[in-house]
């Protein structure tokens, strides 16, 4: 996955409220920050603002019915979302869904799938 995109998406995970984060998310952020640094020496840190903007931005490269992350996940990462087939998606914010980021493989699987559908590339 493109490191810049990953940077932006991951910054979302840091969304307020700043309550206790699960151990899993810290490990994910550290891992992805390392990858981002390796891919782009100019990378300094994740940005909450860029992440929030990316979450809601409409892209043209993916599937027409899922232009943005927020299409399925909803605008507020603290709220549950819904897939196109009507299935509930637990909130993205780790403050609400602390178990969400425990497994690197799962994180990679969903970034790959969903970035493909929204951005048209992994």
């Amino acid at each position, binding site marked *: 996955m493109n490191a810049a995109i990953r940077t932006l998406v991951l910054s979302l995970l840091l969304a307020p409220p700043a309550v206790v984060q699960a151990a899993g998310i810290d490990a994910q952020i550290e891992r992805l920050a390392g990858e981002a640094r390796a891919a782009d020496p100019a990378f300094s840190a994740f940005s909450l603002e860029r992440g929030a903007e990316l979450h809601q931005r409409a892209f043209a490269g993916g*599937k027409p019915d899922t232009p943005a992350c927020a299409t399925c996940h909803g605008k507020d990462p603290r709220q549950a979302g*819904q*897939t*196109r*087939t*009507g*299935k509930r998606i637990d909130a993205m914010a780790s403050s609400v869904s602390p178990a969400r980021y425990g497994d690197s493989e799962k994180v990679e699987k969903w970034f790959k*799938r969903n970035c*493909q*559908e929204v951005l048209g590339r992994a």
Partner: protein
Amino acid sequence: MSALYKPSRLRAALSVLLVLGPGFFVLDRALAGGGHYYPPVSDPLVIEECGGCHMAYPPSMLPARSWQAMMASLDQHFGDDASLPAASAARIERYLMWHAGDAAGSRHAGKLLRGVSASAAPQRISELPKWVREHREVSRAEWADPKVGSKANCPACHRDAERGYFDDD
């Protein structure tokens, strides 16, 4: 005081209700399930992978050849790339085929598969002739309801779909 309201009779009546009540409830559920029971997926991997984006549909809703074709084309899964690691895919395929609607010994065979030609490997449950017939009374407005959103969203109307019951009509 009339004999009907004697405390001893009341107690007796209550005891009978307490003993039989749950039984009636279970019987009622069994009857309601009737011909529309499709055992839900019980394998945790299948629940996790097939149930990530949509309800994990009961494998008895499609014949084994349909599941085989579906698992062979996960990279083009109804417009999405739902590819899986080979080991997971193989295990899921085995489960789906073992529990398919036409699997040997399947108690639930044929219900949704009526009218499906033996050479066809239908992919969309909602295009099976029997499915279409069962849903012809659902109005366009009901399908368009944002709480429904898609024909893939069984639990929107079938409240016990996740437990295998598809009556509610």
